[in-house]
């Protein structure tokens, strides 16, 4: 879900994605750098993201990933699901 969310803002390459997640989560979430790739492949397989070869700001060839329409739909589904879960957890925690 996190990958989908980050990619929904702009297409990124793997390393950029890693950095972006660190940044957004204020370093709270540490994504294991290597295991990002199997995850990316899995999402590609599901058809939620697509990869293409592009150039970075400093003219290096890198593999970029972007969200597909199916991915966007999936993000909404998962976000709604997460909201429900988070609310539920918050409610439980609130009853002390």
């Amino acid at each position, binding site marked *: 879900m996190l990958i989908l969310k980050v990619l929904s803002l702009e297409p990124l*390459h793997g390393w950029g994605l*890693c950095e972006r997640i660190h940044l957004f989560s204020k370093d709270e979430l540490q994504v294991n750098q*290597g295991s990002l*790739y*199997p995850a990316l*492949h*899995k999402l590609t397989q*599901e058809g939620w993201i697509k990869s293409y070869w592009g150039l970075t700001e400093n003219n290096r060839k*890198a*593999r970029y990933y972007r969200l597909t329409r199916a991915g966007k739909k999936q993000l909404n589904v998962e976000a709604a699901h997460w909201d429900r879960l988070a609310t539920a957890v918050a409610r439980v925690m609130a009853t002390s």
Partner: protein
Amino acid sequence: MRLISKWLFRLRATLLPGGLEESMKEEMAFHMEMEARKLMAKGLAPEEAFRKARRDFGEPEYHKEKARESWGISMIQNFRIDARHTIRALRRNPVFAIVSILTLGLGIGANSAIFSVVNGILLRDLPFPEADRLVSLCETFPDDPGRCVTASTPNVTDWAERSSSFQEIGVFRWWGHILETPEGAEGVSSLIATPEFFQIMAYQPAIGRIFRPEDQLEGNRNTAVLDHAFWESRFGSDPGVVGTNINLSGESFEVIGVLQKGQKPPAMSGERGADVWLPLHFGPRDNDRRDWRGFYAIGRLNPDATLEVARQEMGVIHQGLLEEYPEANRDWGLQLTTLHDRIVGRVKNTLFLFLGAVGFVLLITCANIANLILARLSSRESEMGIRTALGAGTARLTSQLLTEGLILALLGSGLGLFIAWVGTPLFLSMAPAGIPRLSEVGIDGQVLAFTLGLAVLATLLFGIAPLARASRIRPMAALRKSRHGRGKGPMGGINGILVVSEVALALALLVGAGLLTRSFAAFYRWDPGIDREHLLVASTSVATGSYQGSQAVLNVYRTLDQEILALPGVRSVARTSAGPLFGGWEPDQVFPAEEAGTGGRGHQARWYDVSPNYFETLGVPVLRGRAFTTEDNSESPMVVVVNETMANQLWPGEDPLGREIWMEMHDGIREVVGVVADVPPLDPDAVVDAEMFWPQAQYTRPVSFFVIRTEGDPGPIQRQVADRIHSVDPDIQVRTVMDYEALLSQRLVQPRFNMLLIAIFSGVALILAGIGIYGVVSRSVAARTREMGIRIALGAQRSRVVRQVVRQSIGIAGIGVVLGLALALAFSRFIRGFLHGVVPTDPLTYSSVALLLFAVAVLASFVPALTASRVDPMASLREE
């Protein structure tokens, strides 16, 4: 869609793994480089930065493998590995490969061949447009409502007028005609049909036109439509034939058209074509004679009507007709079936019998191959153990075993298809005439699909047993057993079950074959009370136009009698319209003359017109009264001779001589002058029919059989008969000249075919079961070599060892035989319809088949038993 793209991706990943691997490597390298740069920017030394970057990233190979798993290519790749492994293993063990592929090929091939026949005849639609809306309507005998006969034309006309379920109902029937041309006469088969019938079957003309309603009107010109093949062969495809006249049995018919190529009449009684199609002319007699049921009726349902609705509606209409025409319709029933069922219904059971039999063969094949695989597996137990110990999961081992099975099955089904391709035409050439739709049988996509389905099914079937075994392998135990020591022998457990079921299945098949053989023998033993060996039968027709009137026909018959009698070796000659095995008898309703017109139902009797010495020539004893003489002619009183059965039916316990009978169709009275012995029919279960005979001189037709009694072997005379007849008049047609034994064997083609086919299948089954027993016993002996060695060393007699092994094999066979007998009994009711003169539970068949299987079991265990007894005690002990 997504699924497809997923699979395309996997396929690419499997077939072209290079590209994906490369890009993944590049991508990861890029990641680590970027990470290192970031760290360098934070002030780390380049080397330190790279090392930390790589550490943070983790092991690239590990992540790659994870990614690969997400592609799902491991499954396909595993398959590739397993397949390669299997093929290598098969090559290393060619005997196993050849034996299993051959047996599987035979099993699958036999199934595919029979299925292609079943598919062509039973499953495919009839070759008519919208054939599923075609319905056969037929009337059923008053005393046999299950038996569908033909229908009466006036009834059909009323059905069509009163019903709303049918678009049209048409009738047709075959009729023999003689086509007369300047070059000579020739018998042609013609089909008489109504224009509605043409519409229903959607026949179209290639040239000219087909029948219109006005062609049917009585008194109109005679018109004819030619069959396409007949037009090609007889008229050289000359389009000018339309508009000309042809002469059929002395009448002139105008050819109005030629049917399109391949348009055939429905195969109501076997594949039977028609050379010439004629419109039905309703004569007043036909309309009066509502009880002339001589026509096949076929209707086309309205698109919105179902067969059930039509049945209900027709039931009401039929009831109405019963009340309106009680004389003609009393007690007659009406039956509606789809045309498809009507045509193939007769052979359905036979085909299912064949399909069932080959199914049994396939099961036995699978059991045998499962046994072979098990045997191989037990020698591979340590291999499996090592693999399990090294971490191969059950799923992985399972998929490997299934892959092996699938590859065997695919190779086997390839061979099977070849066998089916060869075997189907063989089956067709062996098949008796009269099976409908044989020409439509062939190997097509459905047969291919069926074969592949069988291959998969076979894989699962013979894969189950080895799987059950393999999944129980404990690595430590398997490894510890090493090469010599083995656990319990292969007699118990799965192998035993497999062999027992092989024996049981083979026994059930053999019982079927045995019963069919006994039934065939009952036919063959047929004792008609006449000498079968020195008899010739010739079917002739003198309908040439040269012989007008009964006297002319009788005169030429008498000339022919003299000519044939003059042949050396001929003892006597007689004529008849029909006879036992000749075919061609006709029925009539008869009444004792005093009961005529009193509303009774009368008795159905077959009638024959015969020459005076018919009974004497055939050898049928005259029990009372007299046979005919030349004095019985058209001037003398009308006389009849009846058989015993008819005498008992009409005048039970009374003297039939001097009594008179009235015949409904012939509308005449005849006096009984003699009683002849019954000639039992060929079918031992059938009852003797009432039969009556009258002199040909009192009822002369231009067609007759000549019955020729010879002194010795009828073979040499057979060839001379036709020449002799043609020396009198070359225009006289001689259709068949056959000795009586040939006539009999022609009639036995169907039972012989059934018997042979099932016998072949059960022979294969028996061999397979024998191989199965042999395999299990010899492995059990091999596994116990040491035990045998010790026993022999301790003084056990070799004959005792032999006996022990044989006894073991008989034990297996015994369980199989008991189960098989139960199976055969359970299935016996399916075979009842094919049996004549023998009951489906015939104890002799069952016991002899059981004995046969025991004999095979003893035989199959004899070689391994001898091997066991020759074990050298020292050698077997030293082996350890």
